Every structure is written in C-alpha cells, then in structure tokens.
C-alpha cells in the first residue's frame, strides 16, 4: 500500500501533516533546528506576542508536578515590532506554515496586533490566545465567557484576512459553548487546551513553588482532560479542532485524532524528547498504513461509542 496522505488544511493553512508545535514551548523555532529539519512539521506555532514588550514573571517560572509541569512564564516577549524586525525574516525563509500566537490586555490590543501582523508577509495564520492563565488582566478572562470570546474573535476577524485559530482555556465548565461562540464570530479553527490553572507549595518553606504563586499545568497529567474537551468540542463545531495537552507519543496523538482533532500540537513533550514532533509524525503515518487508512479523515473523530439506553 502507498503511504497514507497526511495532508490537513486548517482554513487556508495547508499542512503536510497534522503535527504542529504548541505556542511557548518552541520559542521562535530556532532552538530545535539543530536537532532536526523543522520543515518536517505540519506547522509551527511561535511564542505568544503582545502589542508591547513584556518582561514576564519573576522566577521560579516552572515547577515539576506528577507527570506534569506548572509554568508561569508571564508571556515574556519582545513585543510585536521587535518580533517583526528580529524574528520574521528568519521565519519567512522556512518551508513550513508559521502561525503567530497573540495576546493582549484589551480588545483594542488584539485588533492592533491583528492589523499589524496582517501587513507582514510570510505568516500563515494567527492563533488568538484568549486563554493565558499567567497574566493578571486579559488573556484567560476573554476566553471564559462566550460573549467576550465572541467579541475578541469578531473584532480580530475584521482586521485580518489570515486564518484565525482561537485558543481556548480549559478553565471553564463548558468549553464547547465557547467554541461554538468563536466559530460564529468567524474563527477558522479552535485549538485546545491551554494550561489548567494550578498551584504547588514547598512544605518545608511553606512557599509556593512558582514566583507567580499560581501557574498553568501541562504535560501527560492533563491529557485525559484535554481528550475529553476535544471530543466534546468536535461534536458541536464545524471548524477543525486542533488538539493538545500532554501529547508525548504518536499513540497520544492518534488518541486525540480519534476524539475529533484534525491536527495536534506538541508542547511539554518537546522538553522531554526534543525530536518528539518528528517521531510522532512517523508514528501516525505507520499507524495509518497498518490500519489501511488513506487520509487523516479516516481517523479523525472515529471514536466508537455504544449508546447506553
């Protein structure tokens, strides 16, 4: 049998395969290019950008927890102008779609970012982060209410022709309702999950392990929560769902796809295995071949659930 066709399209973002990197775990792509050809990726999502530079949170910014990590980076980034000047020229040369993750404290800030990034050539899409738990105002606040989520995405929609991915927070009771709302506002896809708000304390010093006191949980520990949310969301939206949260192996990626993810993103998994993304692409390909699947749609959303009377 021929190799399966791994291509996936998210709006106008055409990817060779369904594997992308998760924002904030891959920098601007430079770190991993020593280890493999990043052009193998389906897409690269770069670290969150804000309108103005941000210094980020005081250390410690990371704490290991059972099968996971808590992070509170605080969206450290050089600001959109310096990003365009220093990073985009190198990103433009890549043969891989580059998606810019963006956050702001105000709706006006999101609009400004979208307008500015729309002028820049060589970027394939915008991931609108309405889910960052690590900055005081904004971020997650926009993503926990279907109305404000709708407002952010529809305002961004007016500023850009580029595909928009709305990145959703799991820190809500009904993630599917937020997804429906951003689809209506014009999002081309949703990505989920961002990190789950958490906390860890050193029992000797009685101090929190993070400088920011609380932070976002990611890694294998969150995977079942993420799979459930992908499954719930995929049933109610007609746009592609990008699944992430604790993926470290091709088996994890396939599980997300069966739950309904058209594509997957690797975050924390990059830290333990720096070539995780390529291993996972190979694994998905082999799995599909073995199961006589020709295209990814043979796999996506194919969870088999017997209805209980």
């Amino acid at each position, binding site marked *: 049998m021929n190799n399966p066709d791994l291509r996936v399209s998210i709006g106008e973002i055409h990817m060779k395969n369904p594997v992308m990197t998760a924002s*904030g*775990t*891959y*920098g601007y792509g*430079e*770190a*991993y290019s*020593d*280890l493999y050809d990043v052009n193998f990726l389906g897409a690269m999502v770069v*670290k969150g950008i804000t309108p103005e530079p941000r*210094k*980020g949170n005081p*250390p*410690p*910014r*990371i*704490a*290991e927890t*059972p*099968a*996971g*990590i808590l*992070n509170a*980076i605080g969206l*450290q980034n050089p600001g959109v102008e310096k990003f365009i000047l220093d990073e985009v020229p190198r990103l433009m040369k890549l043969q891989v779609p580059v998606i810019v993750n963006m956050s702001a404290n105000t709706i006006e800030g999101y609009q400004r970012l979208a307008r500015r990034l729309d002028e820049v050539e060589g970027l394939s899409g915008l991931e609108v982060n309405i889910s960052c738990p690590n900055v005081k105002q904004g971020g997650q606040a926009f993503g926990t209410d279907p109305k404000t989520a709708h407002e952010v995405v529809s305002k961004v929609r007016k500023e850009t022709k580029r595909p928009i991915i709305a990145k959703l927070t799991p820190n809500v009771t009904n993630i599917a309702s937020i997804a429906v709302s951003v689809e209506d506002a014009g999002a081309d896809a949703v990505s989920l999950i961002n990190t789950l708000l958490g906390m860890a304390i050193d029992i000797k010093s009685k101090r929190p392990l993070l400088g920011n006191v609380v932070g976002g949980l990611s*890694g*294998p520990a969150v995977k079942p929560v993420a799979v459930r949310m992908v499954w719930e969301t995929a049933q109610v939206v007609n746009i592609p769902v990008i699944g992430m949260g604790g993926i*470290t192996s091709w088996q994890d990626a396939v599980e997300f796809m069966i739950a309904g993810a058209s594509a997957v993103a690797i975050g*924390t998994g*990059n*830290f*333990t295995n*720096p*070539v995780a993304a390529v291993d996972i692409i190979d694994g998905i390909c082999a799995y599909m071949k073995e199961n006589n699947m020709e295209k990814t749609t043979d796999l996506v959303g194919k969870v088999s659930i017997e209805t209980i009377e």
Partner: protein
Amino acid sequence: MIFQESGLIAANESVGDRFYRMALFAPRTASKVKPGQFIHLKCSDTADPLLRRPFSVYDWDEKKKMITILYAVVGRGTEMMSKMKSGEKVNLMAPLGTSFSIDVNFNEALVIGGGCGIGPLLGLVKQLVKKGIETTTLLGMKTGQTSILIDDFLLAGATVKVATNDGSIGIKGHVTEFLENTEKKEKPDFVYACGPNPMLVSVQKWARKQHIPGEISIEEKMGCGTGACLSCACRIQSQDNEDGWDYKRVCVEGPVFSLEEVIFDE
C-alpha cells in the same frame, strides 16, 4: 550545535556525603564540550519525573571519549540517578549554554566552588593549568567525607584550600572566609565561581571592592534547556531598557555570566 547522545554509564560512584561522580562514555559530548557548559539528562524513561535534569560537565577526556558529572542527591531525579549501574544508558542533550572564558591573558586565577557548585570546575581548572595560569581553588564542602574531590583538583595541578561546615578538613566555616583574609599582594587577576547564591553574592561583593573581573555559573529551574520555553529566567544588567535589567535565559545566555552583570535578589 545541540545534539542528543546516548551516554553509556562507565562508573557511578559515591564520593561521600550525598555526592556521586558519574562517568559516561559519550564521544560527541566529550569532543565538543567547553568548561562551564552543561548537559540535560533524562533520568527516567517514564513520564514521572517528567523533565530532564541539568548538570554541568565536571571533567571530560576527548581521547577516551568520556565525560564526568559530579552531582548531589537532592530529590527524586538525582536519587534515581544514584541507583543507575554501569552498563546502563542515559539520554542526554549537549553541549548546552555558555562556557567560562579560557582564552585569556593573565597569570593568576582564583576558582571558587561551594557544594554542588564544584560541578563545573574541574575541567576549567585543568584548562587553566594547561595554559600555565597559576590557579588557586577554594572548595567549600559540608564535611570532609568528600575529600576525594580535593584530590581531583590537586592532581589537576591547582593549589587547593578547603573550608568545611563541620571543620573536619580545612578551616571551619564558609569558603568565602578565605576571601576576607586574602592579602593585597595575593590578589588574583580573574575569579571564577559556582555555588549557592549567598556564596556568589559574597564573591560578587568582594570582587567589586577589589576591582577583580570574573565569571560565575548560576542555576535556575529549567524546562527545555535549549532556549525555547523561557522558564529559566534570571535578572541580568542590560542597557536596552530604562530599568537597567532584563530577564535572560540561564540555558542559552548562561549558565556562565560575567560576575558583574548578575543581579541577585537579597
């Protein structure tokens, strides 16, 4: 150029107190590493503990294709490492971070290490001695149980002075007490240091007062170890903004920084 390598454990021996020396057959790392650089080691094949652990390269031998790390058992990861046997393999990423400057032109170096901070110093001392630089090493340890480490530095050709918390070897007290008693004429041209932050703060203050330049290696909790996640931020002086400082990454812009530029929270 960062790479992954599967290191074959050749020895993993207790050197007293909570300290171990692990020797690894790791040809690529041994041929590329520079003094002060670190490796990021996976101490389990499972998801728990999840993250890699950073360790400075204590010593290496390009011909024998070996590297050595000196580590203290302080938590789960290092506990697991201490149980590893020769013949087992560990995955590591290397060579990471900045290195100590050895392309230098001076006569006398002072190398100061406290506890785990002795970790990046043996290879450095060897290189300095090889260049004909008179090298004095001040070692601060909890007890004399780790005296075997003193031999490592003596064999490397350094003059060694030791301070222990319990006074079982050398002077009783902190290694920085040697600094206060250093006479004007003994002033080194350059100082290298690694150790707990209070020790580094004392070294920084002393070097400033004496107008001695130097470099220090610092630690911060890490995620990726390659510059991608911004977990390992530390405060470094910077002219680029009005506050006069910026967060820099210990894994890329460090772990070795110039002594002057590191801002410690006291």
